[in-house]
């Protein structure tokens, strides 16, 4: 029956993963002790720190699963999972390299030319080259087939791009955008045809990066405007016209990681300190409930890491993990509020009040980025055989 496509085999245990986990934990404890970062919620979006990213690169914790010839380390997805999870749980500043390491690098490995890979992947793995996702547009929302950014070939075989992309995380600190563009006119009969991905150097003339500030005033997102930007012809990523297919595959990587349920983990950790102090039964029970949900999400996400190690592309389970995970991220706030009397405020003298405030101000983002929950549930429903 249809629901089989939602179910993956349990992840194998990985001694190597536990080994690297311990190394990361030791590294993070030392960094925290040295004051090189402070813990915040949602740092995979908001914690841009190139120096920190380079440190991770030096230790071999970026591009972990990639071939060594491209600067990678040929380790398993399970090992990579342990590293990312530890970084997120600590609220470490990982936003600079996050997209490049998670999504753009694997995308290049899969669809890039040899030249593209050789040029870019080692720099990503070194923590020096950062990417943004050029998918959403001002009027497209979740409906990627409706995008309008257009690329046409000029006489030299180069692409001339016009249009605009929004919600590009940290474009102002990044080097490349893998950009979904329309390379042939929209065809009502085949809504997903005629799209392609281009590998765009953000320093090219004609590109303007405008900040999009979010509700708390933070600058994590940008609008990237393309005005007659000339992209070399060899910067096509993958096949012309296969953009929709490539993006769908990319979203499977994007949707399944531990960042889909750990964005508010630092709030849970702060709440746990409160529960440990007071030993209040209602707080302990809430901690237990939240932990049980988190543990289940970990297992789901680990299963996907295991599937990636087996060479599968689990797009439907990934949508499910993101739906369940991001709902959890927001629920954490509500659950904690029920059993503590601490007003949320960035200026609170109480660290729990500050963590609540940070988590709340970022909350609208959890369930929107990477596809709204309505979209994700539609994908899950497809997995159930309903559409």
């Amino acid at each position, binding site marked *: 029956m249809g629901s089989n496509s939602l179910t993956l085999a349990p992840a194998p245990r990985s001694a190597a993963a536990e080994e690297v986990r311990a190394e990361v934990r030791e590294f993070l404890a030392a960094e925290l002790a040295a004051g090189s970062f402070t813990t915040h919620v949602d740092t995979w979006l908001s914690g841009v720190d190139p120096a920190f990213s380079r440190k991770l690169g030096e230790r071999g914790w970026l591009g972990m699963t990639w071939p060594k010839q491209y600067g990678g380390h040929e380790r398993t997805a399970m090992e990579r999972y342990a590293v990312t999870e530890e970084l997120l749980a600590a609220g470490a500043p990982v936003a600079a390299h996050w997209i490049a390491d998670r999504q753009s690098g694997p995308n290049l490995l899969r669809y890039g030319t040899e030249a593209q890979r050789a040029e870019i992947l080692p720099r990503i793995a070194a923590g020096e080259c950062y990417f943004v996702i050029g998918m959403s547009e001002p009027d497209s*929302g979740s409906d990627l087939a409706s995008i309008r950014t257009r690329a046409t070939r000029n006489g030299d075989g180069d692409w001339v791009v016009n249009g605009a992309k929004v919600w590009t995380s940290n474009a102002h600190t990044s080097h490349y955008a893998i950009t979904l563009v329309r390379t042939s006119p929209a065809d009502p009969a085949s809504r997903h045809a005629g799209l392609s991905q281009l590998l765009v150097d953000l320093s090219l003339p004609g590109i303007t990066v405008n900040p999009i500030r979010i509700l*708390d005033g933070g600058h994590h997102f940008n609008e990237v405007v393309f005005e007659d930007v000339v992209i070399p012809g060899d910067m096509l990523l993958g096949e012309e016209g296969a953009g929709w297919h490539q993006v769908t595959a990319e979203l499977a990587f994007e949707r399944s990681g531990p960042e889909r349920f750990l964005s508010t983990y630092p709030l849970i950790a702060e709440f746990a300190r409160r529960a440990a102090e007071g030993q209040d039964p209602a707080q302990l029970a809430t901690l237990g409930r939240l932990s049980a949900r988190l543990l289940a999400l970990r297992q789901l996400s680990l299963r996907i890491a295991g599937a990636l190690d087996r060479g599968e592309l689990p797009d439907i389970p990934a949508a499910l993990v993101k739906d369940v995970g991001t709902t959890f991220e927001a629920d954490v706030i509500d659950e904690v509020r029920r059993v503590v009397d601490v007003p949320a405020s*960035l200026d609170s003298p109480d660290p729990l009040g500050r963590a609540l405030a940070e988590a709340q101000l970022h909350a609208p983002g959890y*369930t929107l980025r990477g596809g709204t929950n*309505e979209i994700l549930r539609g994908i899950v429903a497809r997995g159930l055989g309903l559409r």
Partner: protein
Amino acid sequence: MTSSDVDLVVETVRDILTKFEPFVLTAERPWDAGLWSALAAAGLTGVGLPEEAGGSGGELADAVAIVGALAAGAAAVPVAEQLLVAAPAVLAAGLDLPAPEEPLSVAVDGAVTAEPRDDGDGPGSWTLTGTATDVAWAGVAQHLAVLATSAVGPVLALVDVAGRETTHAANLAGEPRGSFVLQGVTAAGALLTDAQAEQLRARYALARAVQLSAALQQVLAWTVHHAGERHQFGRPLGKFQAIQMELAEMAGEVTAVAALVDAAVQAVERGESLVLAAAAAKVRAGAAVEVVARLAHQVHGAIGFTQEHRLHHLTRRCWSWRDEAGTETAWARVLGAGLLADGPDGLWPALTRVV
């Protein structure tokens, strides 16, 4: 005033609101001073307060309507604190009301002790010591009604805080929320009963519930409007059944909050005991924020998350207001315990008395 007067008052407020840009608060511009002046000039900062005390007259319902209209407009002015909380408390305590054009706020948190400078019976002079925390509009308000404790009971003192040093903190919406360190400050004050002190806290909670109710109604209206305008996959969002379900859920929450908050205000108008009605209103309104703000942002999509969009001016206020003047959890305990005051079998009679 009759109900058509209420409509007139609201219309006046809205007319004034349109002339100001209430949405951008920064550390340098922590409130809408221009709006306040316009409201004060129109006598709207004294509505519901008797003319003989310097107010503009009118009923509680008028003041509530003004507060609601300003809350829905995300107006950064201390009108809720002044009209619904501090001024009525000052008057009830027999103290002199400051001029309504001088912003008056209220302090119920922190620890301030009062010592009588005279016989301590009735309005008199008191010496205040301690720190008032989480004071709304600190740095903006010129006067502060401080709930202090004394050896003989709670004291309401009226402190001139114009120019007094305060911490520059803010709530999630950027509205100033500071502390005042009071060291031997002399102030006019009056002894309250414990019940009066409890009523003051309850009126503060009810004021926030009134603001929440109005803001949530506005958030719903904006979200419905957005769903009608925004197209996805070739049709308006509002035509998708999943979105309709979410909007209907929001409407249920918003309508329930409005019904209870209105009823609590009416109970106050009838002079009934306020505490449980206010507690219920605050708890219900705060609980609705969870659902309404979440779904509003969900339906708005990423655009509602940007600083340019109006949505967050209200959702951030809602997230703050539900915590202020007592969290839902704190008021829920008060309500639960209060409903059982007549014993383990007394819940139903108590429920039918609250509002």
